[in-house]
């Protein structure tokens, strides 16, 4: 990681460090508090019970499916938002980010009144013999609904900072838009794409409110790990704490394995967007 040949400006004001320590403690202390309450002798038995395994397996499966769905829908959305220019673009961005701000329960209700049996689209689906509520499909839809903005936001930011110089060059060399996308744009924004997908997966894994409202709760079908934790808390707090720790561990492992912080851009100023001019000179900004 060390790049001794490049001088970097790294000084951070001490008060910023102090607040950063507070911030880190605020997140780490509750985790420590929970770890302190874990019934370690019974931990393995608690997290490997039938209902726990069913919930964990369901969570992993649905979170993976919703991540794929987020990629399929979110990548085009991010590209259109970052590169396109059309009336209502700002409104569309605001609307796409809506699931970030509305409580997940509200998202679940919205899905219910859209895809539920009595819903806007669900009524027609029901006539066609398709029933979504109370199915694993509903879980995936709920997770995708809340996770999509994470992918779109992350990828759109990367697309904007990456600029369009290379894309423009490829286009002048005769590459068609799809080829530019496949050979230039996507490889260029791959780190942002990966971190966006990881965030979406992590958010899906932790989804609770929308799932509960839209999909219900049945072991092996719709009762994901967060729902199982909430339920176990009613009768067996030990099991709830053990499962919580398991959920955190799974999320932490996935994030640690795949998430990379955005690379520092220390040697060159930000690429000027939409210019196909000569590359900027190699010079550290003083």
């Amino acid at each position, binding site marked *: 990681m060390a790049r001794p040949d490049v001088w970097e400006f790294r000084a951070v004001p001490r008060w910023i*460090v102090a607040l950063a320590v507070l911030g880190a403690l605020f997140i780490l202390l509750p985790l420590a508090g929970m770890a302190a309450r874990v019934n370690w002798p019974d931990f393995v038995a608690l997290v490997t019970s039938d209902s726990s395994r069913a919930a964990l397996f369901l969570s992993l499966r649905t979170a993976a499916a919703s991540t794929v769905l987020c990629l399929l829908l979110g990548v085009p959305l991010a590209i259109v938002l970052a590169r396109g220019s059309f009336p209502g673009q700002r409104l569309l961005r605001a609307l796409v980010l809506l699931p970030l701000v509305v409580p997940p329960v509200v998202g679940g209700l919205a899905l219910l009144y859209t895809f539920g049996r009595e819903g806007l689209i669900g009524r027609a689906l029901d006539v066609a013999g398709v029933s979504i509520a*109370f199915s694993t499909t509903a879980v995936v839809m709920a997770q995708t609904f809340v996770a999509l903005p994470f992918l779109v936001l992350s990828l759109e930011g990367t697309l904007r900072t990456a600029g369009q110089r290379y894309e423009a060059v490829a286009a002048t060399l005769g590459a068609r838009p799809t080829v530019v996308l496949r050979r230039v744009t996507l490889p260029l924004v791959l780190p942002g794409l990966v971190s966006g997908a990881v965030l979406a997966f992590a958010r899906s894994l932790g989804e609770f409110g929308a799932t509960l409202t839209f999909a219900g709760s*049945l072991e092996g079908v719709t009762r994901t790990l967060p729902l199982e934790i909430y339920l176990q808390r009613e009768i067996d707090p030990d099991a709830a704490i053990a499962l919580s720790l398991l959920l955190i561990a799974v999320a932490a492992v996935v994030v640690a394995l795949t998430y990379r912080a955005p690379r520092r851009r220390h040697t060159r100023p930000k690429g000027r967007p939409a210019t196909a001019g000569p590359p900027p000179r190699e010079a550290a900004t003083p």
Partner: protein
Amino acid sequence: MKPFARPVALAIALLLGGTVAGCGTNDAGSPAGSGGSPASTAGASATLSGTLTVFAAASLTGTFTQLATDFEAAHPGAKVSLSFDGSSTLATQIIAGAPADVFASADTKNMTKVVNANLIAGKPVTFATNRLEIAVPPANPANITSFADLARPGVKVVVCAAQVPCGAAARADEASAGVTVKPVSEELNVTSVLGKVIAGEADAGLVYVTDVHGAGGKVKGVPVNIPRATVNSYPIAGVSSSKRSPLAAAFIAFVTGAQGQAVLKDAGFGAP
């Protein structure tokens, strides 16, 4: 790591400062309770003042909101602050030190948890009972007319999970009726069951009589027509760590008294 020593000290100082400030606000909010009634006796309602914090089961939301208003009207100077949630959540919060003065649980099990933690003053009193009812959408699409209809194939039934009181009651009723229901969902609380029926997602849901009552015309109730249907008892008690025990006692007396019982009866609760 010399350069980090000072920032860390500053961080700790900030943390402590925040805690002290937090205590300060708490104290500022409560003097009416401790200092406002120096010579309070249980009988003299005029001297009962301060804010009483009541933790009540979610199924009591409508009735206790009403009762709190009535109690405040009867005791000028007293204020009732209500917190509604699942009984087990409330019990956990009280055991963890939440500042409750009165606890009203939807089952004896969760009250017993708090009693066993030595946090209940005196003995809990049962102030109401509740039983299950089948909630169906107003149009009753699956034509549910009896408890046995819930076992019909193709009927989408939603119940509470066995771990929560309403689910335990549902299982007990199934067992005593000899009916096996295959639910499409086992919800985490009774409100979610009712919500699924109101939304028209489920053909039927097992909820409390009072839930059907409280939903107005949004659902229709079909009685659980079985012998020995489960009856849930609602106990109420003062929390021993409370600094406002006279006020707490007055509120409990109000709930168990004629006026309180009338409100509960109107909402569909059974007599204790």
